[in-house]
């Protein structure tokens, strides 16, 4: 099976405190730790496991700048066969539809049976996979947490409310968005990354993909971020101050009053 996995380089929210620049134009990006989007990492692992079972190849692709290449290389160190970097100044400021249009062009250049994305990324929109499928006229399923391969179709599970699982049969080719927990992504060591350090990763610009410059970027975007802001919150939590000892004493008092401690 020929599998394309769409990945994104994102600030790691587990490792960073996100702060907004005073002018609201962006978050403070200096000193941020970046990594591959967590959901995408599960998607790549799933693709590798499918390939190892039924044969074929795994290609990882990202839309980004030259720094995004490190993420492709990391996923190749995991076991992806090929990487493709989609980089062009014209891509900057694209909305979800623009990103999907760029990815559609790269899908058209290959012969893929299956396209995987993470269920969502740093902007939490969970949109690109579904848009890409609609543009390709391929079937789509989101939040996939189980894949059984078949000949012309897959049997897949979708995670739905309450931890229940919605089972579906979906024809190939298709697009699936992958939920965390579907597998246990393998560890990538520095040695693995060194092994793939010299593999050439092709870079395609808008013209290479046949993407019209005005179909992507800010001019084509119908959804635009105006600013980042800090909302006025309610009172929020009462923050206990003092030494650890003092906080613990105060907490025990409160827990007793609220029935949390006998």
């Amino acid at each position, binding site marked *: 099976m020929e599998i394309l996995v769409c990945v994104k380089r994102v600030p790691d929210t587990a490792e960073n405190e996100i702060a907004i620049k005073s002018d609201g134009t962006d978050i403070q990006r200096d000193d941020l730790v970046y990594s591959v989007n967590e959901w995408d990492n599960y998607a790549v692992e799933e693709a590798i496991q499918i390939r190892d079972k039924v044969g074929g190849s795994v290609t990882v692709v990202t839309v980004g700048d030259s720094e995004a290449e490190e993420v492709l290389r990391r996923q190749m160190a995991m076991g992806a066969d090929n990487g493709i970097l989609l980089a062009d100044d014209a891509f900057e400021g694209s909305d979800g539809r623009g990103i999907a249009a760029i990815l559609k062009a790269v899908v058209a250049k290959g012969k893929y049976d299956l396209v995987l994305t993470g269920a969502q990324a740093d902007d939490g929109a969970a949109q690109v996979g579904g848009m890409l499928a609609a543009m390709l006229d391929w*079937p789509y399923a989101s939040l996939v947490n189980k894949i059984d391969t078949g000949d012309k179709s897959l049997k897949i599970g979708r995670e739905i409310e309450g931890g229940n699982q919605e089972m579906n049969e979906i024809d190939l080719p298709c697009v699936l968005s992958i939920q965390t927990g579907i597998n246990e992504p393998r560890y990538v060591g520095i040695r693995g990354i060194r092994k793939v350090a010299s593999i050439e990763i092709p870079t395609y610009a808008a013209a290479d993909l046949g993407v019209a410059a005005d179909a992507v970027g800010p001019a084509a975007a119908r959804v635009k971020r*105006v600013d980042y802001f800090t909302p006025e919150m309610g009172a929020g939590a009462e923050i206990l101050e003092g030494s650890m000892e003092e906080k613990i004493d105060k907490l025990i008092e409160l827990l007793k009053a609220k029935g949390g401690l006998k």
Partner: protein
Amino acid sequence: MAQIFAYITHKGGAVDDTAAELAAAAQKIDAAAQVTAIVVGAGADLDAACQGAAKLFAQVWKFDNAALAYPNGEVVRKLLSQVVPAGSILLVPHDTFGMDMAPGLSIKLDAAYAADVVAIESLSGTELKVVRQEFAGMAHTHIAVDIAKGAVLTLRPGSFQPEKGAELAGTVSDKSGDAGDLGTKRRYLETVEAEMGDVDITKADVLVSVGRGIEDQDNIGVAEELAEAMGAVVSCSRPIVDAKWLEKSRQVGTSGKTVKPKVYLAMGISGSFQHLGGIKGSPFIVAVNKNPKAPIFQVADIGIVENILEFMPALTEKISG
């Protein structure tokens, strides 16, 4: 003004809580809007759901079709792409169905798409200003949506306060005949119910709930010791289950269990909306997190900025005497 539609989620003949939230959100877009609810399904349950929707919306479009008996996102998208007029605004709950169906629908309708909207700010001409969150709830953004060609918006459940007004007596129109071919390349098979675990966290009065801050599987014991000292039960957030450190049956959240404890200790949990969606009944929430900006502090009653790996053992020791 663009026509506004609301997609109604329903189960067993009852409309979901999100139906009233979509009605409230539509009023925020246009206070004078005559909003049309779209209710799809089959048989008696569908009729009952339409009656429920008619109490909230002026018009209800009913689509009765055996292919819609289960709301398969692919089938519903195909139907909506046939029946929603070009240029409309369609509101959909941002749940596991909406996430599945809506992004592709925006392409099919050639409409703008804004996902997981938490507030509607203003409408000026064809620019609809809404609020979203990014970076796991740690940053808010204003988003300008160009609705000139229509828009599909998914709305975060629980974010829009339903208005406590009089019930409407909306008209239900059977539009089933407008549906064309609904064949798709994805077929719903069955729903597999979540497994019950060894402990039922939904029955616990006091929960010690752990998140990413626990850092390592070996540290789960630290939470178990605290829970034991308190007579509480250990639950967790999603990353702990993804890492297979605790059973899925211990997960609190929209994709896990809905709990109703009296006291909830959120230990190293950042507080995503999916996690908070699983906490009901207004418990007394204590949050301990080393990140003072963690969203959990906005909803907790008591906040403590500490590393849980130091705080929990110290608390256990004090309680145990």
